[in-house]
Every structure is written in C-alpha cells, then in structure tokens.
C-alpha cells in the first residue's frame, strides 16, 4: 500500500511538473498574472508529491518491506537502521528519487522565499526548473520505478553493497546531489534571464545565494567522498582522478568560477553573458556527471545496474537540455547589454583570470575524462588516462591560480594599483620563501616539489591573512578598533577569507599527500614490527570479531615512536554474510599534521599476515581545508546582503527593481 502511494505521488508530481513548466512560462509571455501565479504553489505541491514518494520509499526500506523489489535487492533485515535508511539512496532508482526530491526542494525554496523576485523572472525560472523535474520524473517512471513489487517476496534482502555500508557514504550522496542539483537553480535563472533579455545586478544578487548553497554542498560532498575513498578502499589514496570523481569535480570547478563571476555582475554590472554561460555550463556538467555515473558507461561502485535503455534516455535528455540552452544562449545573449568598464589590472581583471584558469582546468579534466570514452567509441582502442595526465595538466594551472589568488582580493574595482598590492604582499612572499626553505630542510633528499608546493600554500595563507588584517586595521589601530572593525566586517568578507584560507590548507595537504608519503608492506607474525618514518608498527594479535551483518578478522597494532606508544590501530578484514563479499577496513590514527594508516592483508595460513602501513604527513589537512572552505561558504551565505535577495524572513518585500544597496 505504502509503495503504491509513493508510486502514485510520483505520477502526480509528473503532472504538476508538466503544468508548472507550461503555464507560468506562457503567462509570463502574455502578461497573464493568473497563469504566472501558478508557479509558486505548484512548485510547493511538486515538492510535497516528491517528498511523499521519497518518504514512502524510505519507509519501505526502514521496515524492510521485501515485497518491494528495490528493497529486496538493496537492503537486508540485519543491517543497522542507519544503513537501512542509507540504502534508500544506495541504489539507482532510489538515488534518482532523491535527485528529483532535491530539485523540487530548490523549486519550493524559491517559491517560498522568492517573494521579492520580479514576477516574470520567478515564473520563468520555476517553469524551467519544472521542465528539468518533468524530464527526470519521466525517466524514473519509465525506466527506473523504485516501487516495483516482487512476488513472492524473498525471506530476506540481498544487502546493500558492503562498501557503501559506511557513515561517509551514507551522507556523501545526499550532499553531492544537493550540490549537483542545486546548480539547477542558477541554470533556471540563467534561462529565465535569457528569455527576459535582461541581466542586472539584482539578478546576480538573487542567483548568488543559490549558487553558493549548491557550491557549499558540492564541496562538502566531494570532500566526504574523497575521505571515504581514503579510509574505506584501503588503497591509501585520497584522489584518483577516476572518471567518477572527475564527474563531480568538473561542475565544482565551473561552479566556483560562476560564484566569482556573479560577484562582478552584482558589483560592476559586467561579465553578464559570460556569467550566464557559466550558469548553463555548470548545470550541464552536473547533468553530464549524472549521465556518466548513472548510465553505466563507466564501471564503478556508482554504476549500480547498467541498463542501456537508461543510458540512452539520459543521453537524449542531455542533448535536449544542453543543446537547447546553448542554442537559446547563442540566440539571446548578444542582446544583453554590456556593463561597466575596467582596466586589466583590477578586481574584475583578477576575477576574469580566476575564471579563465578554473574553466581551463575544467576543460583539461573534461578532455582527460571523456577522451577515452570517445576513442573507444570511435576506434575501439582502449586507453586510460590516469593521474600522470592530470598532474601534468591540472596542477600547472593551479599554480598561477594560487599566485593570482594572493593578489586578487587586494586589487580595487575598475582600476587597481598593482605596485601597491605587491608592496603589501612582500611579507607573504617572505613567508612563502621561509616555508619553502624550512620544508626543504626538513625533507632534505626528497622531492623538491613538495617544498615548493608548501611554499605556494604559505604564500596563499599569508596573503589571505594580510588582506584580512589590513581590512580590520591590524598594525594601524589599537586593539579595540581592530575588534570593532572585525565584528563590523560583512560576513561575506569573513566567508571569503575562510574559504581562501581553507583552500591554502587543502593545497598544503594535497602536496604532502602526493610527495612525502612513506609506506611499507611486509608479511609478519604476531609480535613482529614494521618501521617507517621513525614509527614502529607492531602486530600484537589477530582476533575474530562479529558485527551485525559481517564477521571479521581484526589485527591490533601498537605504534611506537621513540619507544613510547603513540597509537593503537585495529584494521579489519570483513566478510559480509549476505553477499559473501570481503572488504578491507583500514585503521587510521590522526594527529595535527599526519596520519598513521594500517591495513591488514590476507593470511598465508601459517600464522603470517600481509600488513601494509603508511605514514602520511599533512593528509588530515585535506579534510580540514575542505571543512574550512565549507564553513566559509556558510558564513558568507549568512551575510545580510545575500538574504536581501534570497531566503527572506520577516522582511518587508523590497520592490522588484530596487537599486542594489551600497556595499
């Protein structure tokens, strides 16, 4: 019964989406107020319908209703409740329902908080949003019905893929989707603006919070996914340049560019057509990501079931959405009026450089990701493009980005004084050199790239702090004034400082992880030790343990440094009972600057075990940096100025074309 309600709710949502995609759009074209007014309530209804459908699916998973095929195939009564719930989106059908739920959630939020949007823009944006929803609902109902019944029902379910039974992966998909799908809002606003033929500062002010919100979640989702791969797969890496990772990284790169170019539209009324293009590209890349991951073109943990029919459906959808929006862009964009002028050396100029570097970087990732697929389709040659390619293309583009990032915030709008900026950044240069020298000394004999990379991070961190310090008057005013200024600074300024500083931390972590890692692999008995980087890992014993739906062998290592025990690590080899699959659970001890990482391998049957241990300096900084970036995003989102545009609460509606308040 519950499943049928869910199925019916999805069909209802499809009908509502159809109405919402047609009427408000037509109403806006003809000036029919009543038709336009349908947009907001229908967006709410659509959210309710998809919410009901998702709730029904969630319920079926929570109570382990194995008469539903999807539950029977992807869950098991022995799973802890959290993984029963996570199973809802740990499969193709359920994850698509989550996709449309988040899409409807964004539509609903615009309907709810967008009271101050110009009525035509709001109607058109919600219409475009509903078109996307319609396509995906149709996709679900036609090719991936999550509510299909199974008769007779099995006694128990087939279990969730054990690799996905992990807290990191329970949270990773919802966050990533929130980001992916969140960019649909910027896309819908961009299409609406193209139809209106008008982009102004107010438009950017409305689009930015939605973009920022999506960016925050995409950043969090990617970091979480990377963290999961790091500790769960047991290969010790944090980023593999795997096509599936790239699929989420490309929208992030272009979305980050969009976030910055929208600032120029808002403040300076320039870069409009470029910003519109970025909004279209960001969501297009999100769609391409969905296609790559869901169609089964790539075989990975994400391709739950490969079904050519689905791939073709998404491909057609992709062609219509991307082709259509770009055609609309080509037709309408030339009519948008250009705005403020500026010199190359200016804040605008630096943001353009940021945009060029980020989009170029995204293009190299795009080529590296899609070229193998293209070559296979055209010639049948099978190649893989791995980390060496991306290290040779992506990394060189990040270096000028980091250098420019130091200068950018120092430059004033329109025309800036580069000499002055260089003057103020002298100290950052000194910091960079000192950091490089210290790092080179400490790691003497190892790759010099590590020291240089750390120097760049030092440059970035120092310049971010210098810029922030000069804003609040450190060194010029007394403590009270500084404090007053710091608290009076817009949250957006705090957010920018945090996000950029987080990037510096992450860059340092990435450098350390790729250059200075130590590892050793040995076959050892209980009592034997492996030594790396001044640490001695001793295998104490291996026990058999039992979990809720698995059995495991757990090795206990004690780690000594200078004769003192600093950590105890207990990696496991698990065997999940239902599917009979084995997984490796690594054990990690983290301190402020390094990870100690141990993996238990297979036994040889004569009392020896293969053990692999790593010393990974600076790796924790990757997650720390990502977390600081996310925090910066939230702080910036809480800025009063942005709330004027989007989620408004208890605030008198401002006239639609109110002039942008001064900074």
């Amino acid at each position, binding site marked *: 019964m519950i499943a049928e309600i869910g199925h019916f709710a999805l069909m209802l949502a499809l009908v509502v989406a159809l109405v919402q995609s047609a009427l408000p759009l037509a109403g806006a074209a003809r000036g029919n107020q009543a038709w336009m007014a349908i947009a907001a309530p229908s967006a709410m209804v659509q959210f309710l319908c998809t919410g009901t459908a998702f709730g029904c699916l969630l319920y079926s998973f929570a109570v382990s209703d194995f008469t539903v095929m999807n539950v029977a195939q992807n869950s098991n009564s022995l799973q802890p409740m959290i993984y029963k719930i996570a199973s809802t989106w740990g499969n193709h059908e359920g994850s698509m329902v989550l996709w449309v739920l988040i899409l409807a959630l964004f539509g609903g939020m615009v309907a709810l908080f967008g009271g101050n949007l110009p009525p035509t823009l709001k109607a058109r944006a919600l219409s475009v949003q509903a078109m996307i929803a319609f396509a995906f609902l149709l996709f679900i109902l036609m090719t991936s019905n999550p509510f299909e019944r199974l008769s007779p029902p099995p006694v128990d379910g087939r279990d969730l893929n054990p690799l996905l039974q992990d807290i990191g992966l329970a949270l990773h998909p919802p966050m990533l989707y929130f980001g992916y799908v969140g960019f649909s809002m910027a896309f819908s606003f961009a299409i609406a603006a193209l139809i209106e033929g008008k982009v102004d500062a107010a438009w950017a002010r409305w689009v930015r919070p939605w973009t920022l919100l999506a960016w925050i979640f995409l950043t969090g989702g990617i970091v979480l996914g990377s963290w999961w791969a790091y500790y769960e797969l047991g*290969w010790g890496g944090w980023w593999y340049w795997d096509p599936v990772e790239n699929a989420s990284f490309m929208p992030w790169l272009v979305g980050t560019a969009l976030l910055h170019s929208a600032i120029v539209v808002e403040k300076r009324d320039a870069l409009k057509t470029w910003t519109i293009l970025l909004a279209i590209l960001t969501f297009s890349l999100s769609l391409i990501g969905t296609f790559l991951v869901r169609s089964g073109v790539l075989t990975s943990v994400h391709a739950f079931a490969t079904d050519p029919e689905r791939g073709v459906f998404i491909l057609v959808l992709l062609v219509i959405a991307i082709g259509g929006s770009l055609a609309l862009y080509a037709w309408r964009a030339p009519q948008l009026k250009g705005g403020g002028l500026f010199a*190359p050396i200016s804040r605008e100029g630096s943001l353009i450089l940021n945009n060029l570097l980020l989009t170029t970087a995204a293009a190299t990732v795009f080529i590296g990701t899609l070229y193998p697929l293209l070559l296979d389709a055209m010639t049948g040659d099978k190649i893989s493009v791995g980390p*060496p390619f991306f290290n040779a293309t992506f990394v060189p583009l990040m270096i000028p980005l980091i250098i420019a990032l130091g200068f950018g915030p120092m430059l004033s*709008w329109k025309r800036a004084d580069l000499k002055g900026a260089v003057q103020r950044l002298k100290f950052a240069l000194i910091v960079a050199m000192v950091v490089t020298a210290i790092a080179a000394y400490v790691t003497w004999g190892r790759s010099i790239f590590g020291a240089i990379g750390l120097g760049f991070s030092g440059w970035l961190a120092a310049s971010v702090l210098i810029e922030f310090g000069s804003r609040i008057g450190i060194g010029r005013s007394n403590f009270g004034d500084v404090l007053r200024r710091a608290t009076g600074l817009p949250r957006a300024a705090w957010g920018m400082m945090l996000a950029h500083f987080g990037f510096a931390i992450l860059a340092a972590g990435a450098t350390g992880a790729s250059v200075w890692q130590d590892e050793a692999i040995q076959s050892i008995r209980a009592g034997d030790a492996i030594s790396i980087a001044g640490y001695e890992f001793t295998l104490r014993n291996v026990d058999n343990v039992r979990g809720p739906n698995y059995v495991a062998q757990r090795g206990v290592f004690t780690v000594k440094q200078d004769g003192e025990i600093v950590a105890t690590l207990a990696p496991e080899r698990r065997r999940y009972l239902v599917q009979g699959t084995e997984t490796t659970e690594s054990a990690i001890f983290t301190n402020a600057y390094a990870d100690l990482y141990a993996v238990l391998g297979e036994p040889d049957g004569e009392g020896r075990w293969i053990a692999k241990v790593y010393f990974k300096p600076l790796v924790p900084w990757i997650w720390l940096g990502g977390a600081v970036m996310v925090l910066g995003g939230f702080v910036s989102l809480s800025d009063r100025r942005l709330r004027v545009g989007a989620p408004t609460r208890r605030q008198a509606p401002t006239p639609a074309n109110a002039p942008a308040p001064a*900074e």
Partner: protein
Amino acid sequence: MSTPTTGRTPATRKKRRLYAVLAGLTMLGIAAALVLTAFEDSIVFFYSPSDIAEKNLRPGQTVRLGGLVEADSVKKSADGVTTEFVITDMNKTIAVSYKGLLPDLFREGQGVVTQGTLGADGNFIASEVLAKHDENYMPKEVADALKKSGKWKEPEK
C-alpha cells in the same frame, strides 16, 4: 573595498574585449600545449595478452594488461608479499608479478586488470592491480578482449 576611479580613463570597451579575448586565447593555447604533451607521455593503453604478443612495447612503457586470472596459477613468493599469477585471454598467457595488497575480490578464474610494465624476461611487473567492486563484475575491457579472442561466455544470471 571599492575605490574611486583614478583620473585616467579606463580602457575602452573594444580594447577591454580584445584583452579578454587575448587572455582567453593564451589560456587555451597553454591548455592545449599541456594536454598534448601530457597525452603523449601519460596515456595508458589497455592490452590483452594476445595484444602484448603482437605489439612491440617500448621498454618501460606503462600499459594495462587485462584478462582472466588462470586457475591454480596464483603463488606467493618467498618474501610473503609478492604475488605471482598468470593472466590469460584463453589464447595467450602472460606471467605477472605484483608486490602489494591484492584487492578483496581478486580470485582465480575471474577477470582482472593490472597496470605496470613488461620486464626484459617477458614477464609483466604490475604496480597496480585494479579493484573490482562486486563478484559478478567483469571489467569491460576484459570482456571485450575475451570477445575478441572468441572465448567469451555470457555470465549466467
């Protein structure tokens, strides 16, 4: 942060556009150069044992080798951490040695993809054995290679 404009006039619209286009083109040029050089050095081809027998690999060239792990071929060498096994496409075989942890789903008789270089003795030295994510999964490249050698059997459902 915004400061008033200085006395000089900002660049004209045309000039500004020219700058932007030039910057864009420069960036594209750099990117193209990076991509092309990187492609030359870092593309890894996938070969089956039969392909390797036909092609002349450069010494030290990194390739991917895929096929089935031959039954009863997996052996641990004396150091306890190096595994030796034979990869076959049911046509040709090649001996592989790999030092490291094998993925959880590495099994005799199942598909596998390894990455590494061909040694002087004709044996393959793998630096990576790629993980598969479930026991029914057959790497796509391996399936295609088996189809090519005519030994492909549809997996039973």
